[in-house]
């Protein structure tokens, strides 16, 4: 699944570790999300959406739209 996590993070000048701290996950998880190696659980997707103040579908793209 594609996502805009890296762009949203870069806009705020956060490192992967900064974002990991805010989401209470490991930095490796952020890296895996950004590189498309891991799809988040629904609870984590909601936490990401709330953190960036955007709907889930504007952050994640399953290619079906």
């Amino acid at each position, binding site marked *: 699944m594609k996502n805009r996590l890296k762009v949203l993070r870069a806009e705020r*000048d956060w490192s*992967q*570790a900064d974002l990991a701290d805010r989401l209470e996950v*490991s930095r*490796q998880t952020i890296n895996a999300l950004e590189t498309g190696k891991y799809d988040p659980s629904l609870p984590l997707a909601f936490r990401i959406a709330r953190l960036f103040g955007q709907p889930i579908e504007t952050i994640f793209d399953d290619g079906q739209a």
Partner: protein
Amino acid sequence: MTSSSSSPRLNGARLAQGVAGLIVGGGLGYLVGRLLKQGDIDLSGLTWSDSVAALIAVMLFVVGLILIAATFHRGLAARVMDPASDRPARPAQITFYRQQAIVLALAGVMMAAPVAARLAWQPLSSELAGAAMAAIVALFLVQTVLNLSVWIRADEMIRQTVAEAGAICFWVLQGALFLWAAAEKLELVPALSAWDMMTILMGFYLVISSVISVRRGLA
């Protein structure tokens, strides 16, 4: 900003881990070699699964020891556990890393213990075997508690990696076990012992979990 690509620092951290592994592993190899040369231990009675289990046990123990040592320095712990990290490990991370390291080291000790006991005491009396088994059960209980603690502290990707590795191992090995059992019943292949099967399971799990971890950037 943290880079996700392979960097000189990342390669340096991996190289340092490899060198540390060679030093500790080499030291253990030298010690075993000396004991063999002096005739203090006799490996002639070892089965293939004893040898493989001993190799896996040494690997687990050595990696566990290296990681435990690394957790006494916050910067080193971060580099060893997450080479691309741009900051020292926090106290909570240190505790988490240390628990993982102790779980690995204990797994190594428990795997080596039955083989080592049989090598050290020949013949092995029932009293000594009972004492060794009691020690293994005690270590197993401690390791189980630590394993549960690691699972609770781990984030969702680590948990999913463990769950996926477990699922793949179950589906592949239950099929392999069925086919081997059928062939064994038909007297086409030799019988496997519980120790043989445990060794295959542990080796296969380590390979699968390592592959999944590397693919997700965890290792």
